[in-house]
């Protein structure tokens, strides 16, 4: 069974600085997707960035980028030039692409990010 582990329950960053959130996962599959979601107090999950496992190039979305290490099963999120609006819970998620549970997301426990002005 696939598992996702986020080892940092809380992180803090100064506004305008850079922070990296860690995620490791376990799977026997070779083809899958990985995601980072942001969950503000409104509770709505917002997609931050997506990585397809067969792509070697790390995904980037403006100030957000990932470091995807497939062999190590590691998937970290880097937030550059942190803004006050980045404060939220961040969840790493693995998406099943095959089988009866195709499409389902398996989430880590989350990392609470605080941004200091």
């Amino acid at each position, binding site marked *: 069974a696939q598992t*996702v582990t986020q080892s940092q329950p809380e992180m803090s960053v100064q506004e305008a600085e850079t922070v990296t959130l860690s995620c490791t996962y376990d799977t026997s599959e070779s083809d899958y*997707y990985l995601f980072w979601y942001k969950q503000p107090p*409104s*509770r*709505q*999950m*917002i*997609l931050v960035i*997506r990585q397809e496992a067969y792509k070697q190039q790390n995904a980037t979305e403006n100030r957000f980028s990932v470091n995807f290490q497939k062999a190590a099963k590691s998937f970290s999120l880097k937030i550059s030039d942190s803004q006050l609006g980045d404060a939220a819970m961040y*969840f790493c*998620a693995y998406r099943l*692409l095959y089988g*009866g*549970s*195709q*499409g*389902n*997301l*398996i*989430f*880590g*426990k*989350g990392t609470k990010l605080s941004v200091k002005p």
Partner: protein
Amino acid sequence: EAGVAQSPRYKIIEKRQSVAFWCNPISGHATLYWYQQILGQGPKLLIQFQNNGVVDDSQLPKDRFSAERLKGVDSTLKIQPAKLEDSAVYLCASSLSNLRNTEAFFGQGTRLTVV
């Protein structure tokens, strides 16, 4: 484009009572998911629908939880009778399909407190 709508936003009930949550997915989305998010944890899938058929309900506690998606559009999730450990946020998500290149969009969830 309207997002995934859920109601109610909050619900407080006593244990052993019943409760129902409603979800209206994005128009045209064939796949609908219900997730349970217990405080301090990530969401966990309860059930996945493809149109009005159940694709995966392996983690749904079927002795007390039920869900339906009539006509392949709106969905309701029911708990009867509720237990204290059912206190959680219940998130609904939808996507065009469950194929690889589709994105899941989430609603704002219903926060359930069982006392």
